[in-house]
């Protein structure tokens, strides 16, 4: 009968199923070449950010004024040197850490604030929803980068402050998306079923709503990391972000812009690093969305 159908359709026992889960994800990843590229770029970025000092051929802070503005492929400097004679390859490698740290911590902070606000607005509705969403509307009407600049100008420069200002400018996207997810969810019949069972409101939120918005949070977060990394670079470029002499791609661009006509390599390589990072994160985010999207899950 019916019971039989399930057993034949799913002959694997639970243990075998658990083992095949990671394999299945790997198989799905290999099927999409954009996913593979994104995933590889992210792995590369993570390796660089953890082992940057070990991998870098030179000391990224060591200024050899004699060797200033050497073009690529001279004296062992693969990507040349900057205006203070520091090895650009080493600085690009070490600069990865700033991007990763800022990208990850911003997405965690912005995601946390945005999810809390979005869930409260979407689940409780009423006046609190109206107030929160108008705040979001107001904030969304300002350009993102302008907000980041204003907030970081108030807070001052530095790694922590740049994370805070990016998160304060970026949580609204999460709030918007999560609110609409919650709004759609609370109309679902299994939520009504939970109410009919007699589940308390807070438990419905924790046990039924939150697990079902986890996927959109992950997807949105992975796509937002790229935005934050670029924004950090822009803010650093404008002098508000990570301060020299710390190697960060944004302030490398800033320092290199004066030499743009004579020494193109100063800004080209950090620029390429930013592009590749944003590309990798976005490709991976797209793949994640396609894979985790509940609509496609059954296939």
């Amino acid at each position: 009968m019916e019971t039989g159908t399930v057993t034949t359709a799913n002959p694997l026992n639970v243990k075998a199923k658990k083992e095949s889960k990671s394999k299945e994800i790997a198989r799905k990843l290999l099927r999409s070449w954009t996913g593979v590229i994104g995933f590889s770029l992210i792995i590369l970025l993570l390796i660089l950010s953890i082992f940057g000092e070990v991998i870098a051929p030179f000391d990224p802070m060591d200024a050899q004024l004699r060797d200033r503005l050497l073009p690529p492929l001279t004296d062992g400097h693969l990507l040349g040197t900057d205006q203070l004679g520091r090895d650009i390859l080493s600085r690009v490698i070490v600069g990865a850490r700033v991007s990763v740290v800022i990208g990850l911590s911003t997405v965690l902070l912005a995601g946390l604030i945005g999810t809390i606000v979005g869930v409260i607005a979407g689940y409780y509705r009423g006046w609190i929803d109206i107030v929160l969403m108008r705040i979001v509307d107001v904030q969304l009407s300002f350009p993102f980068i302008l907000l980041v600049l204003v907030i970081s100008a108030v807070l001052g420069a530095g790694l922590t402050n740049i994370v805070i200002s990016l998160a304060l400018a970026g949580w609204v996207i999460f709030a918007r998306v999560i609110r609409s997810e919650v709004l759609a969810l609370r109309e679902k019949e299994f939520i009504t079923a939970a109410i009919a069972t007699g589940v308390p409101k807070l438990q419905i939120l924790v046990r039924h709503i939150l697990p079902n918005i986890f996927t959109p949070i992950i997807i949105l977060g992975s796509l937002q990391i790229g935005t934050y990394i670029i924004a950090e670079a822009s803010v650093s470029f404008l002098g508000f972000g990570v301060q020299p002499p710390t190697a960060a791609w944004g302030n490398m661009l800033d320092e290199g812009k004066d030499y743009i006509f004579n020494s193109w390599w100063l800004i080209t390589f950090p620029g390429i690093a930013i592009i590749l990072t944003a590309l990798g994160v976005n490709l991976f985010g797209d793949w994640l969305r396609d894979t985790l999207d509940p609509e496609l899950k059954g296939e």
Partner: protein
Amino acid sequence: MLAAGFKKAGGDEMTDIPILEVTNLKKYYKISQGLFKSNIVVKAVDDISFSIKKGETFALVGESGCGKSTTGRTLLRLTEATSGEVRYKGKDLMSLPYEKMRFLRKELQMVFQDPYASLNPKMTIKQILTEPLRVHKKYTPSERTKKIIEILKIVGLSEEHLDRHPNEFSGGQRQRIGIARAVILNPDFIVADEPVSALDVSVQSQVINLMLDLQKEFELTYLFISHDLSVVEHMTDRVAVMYLGKIVELTETEKLFKDPKHPYTQALISAVPASHPREVKKRIVLTGDVPNPANPPSGCAFHTRCPFVMEKCKSIAPNLTEVADGHQTSCHLYSEKKEEKTNVIIHSEV
């Protein structure tokens, strides 16, 4: 199968004490038409009253949009009523504080129409079935697992399904899980909102028989909401027919199918497909569509489609009155003289 239904109707479980009494229940929805226009009021449930006896299966039938599902949801306060009273064992559910109502829900459960939407996709069957027990603090955690396995066996599933997710089951199996969730708390009253209409016909009868078995085993009272008259005829004791938010006829199932009084009911019953190709049935085909509930006709809501429409139907709305023993209908035809009544009864050959 049929015999089981009839036996139950005459059985000793059913008493005349009403378990649920609905009086003047109304559920109106306001639809905003924009800033400068006045709101439209849709009377989804418009002043209905009925009572359900302990142990019986009471059916609400009608076309989609007639307010039968809204009634079911309003009874359990899944949507708040506009006005009216719902007395369950003497207590008015509509005025209970939220927490008290939540507590009482262990006695009042619901089976939903769509088994694909009514189970949380992220939960395992064990989690889904543990939840009612946990929320109402029944049994110790180890006893709960035992109880869950027991109930799974009753609904025709087994222990090996415990750690599976809903998407690994077929529609019929999911509905069994939904039914298991509803009966695991040992409730007294279950609202079944079209529990089989999303299922294949072959699975429908299995689920219906399961529900009938459970009714015997747990002495359940059902409010069975359906648009499928053959299912209603098979498994219910009494029927209320709804049209545009109102009850137009209310009587025992047997009487309704043998001798429908209201022209709308007659049309509905004549539309049930014949069970034998050579069976001759007179079909009453209604003209037109169901009127827009936001703008219902004046007088009797059915007068726009009624084959026996009279002048007075257009202005005066009929009340639900008893026209025969235990047979209520709201139609002006029966407030007239007796002879005219006989002309109306077309559906009698069956």
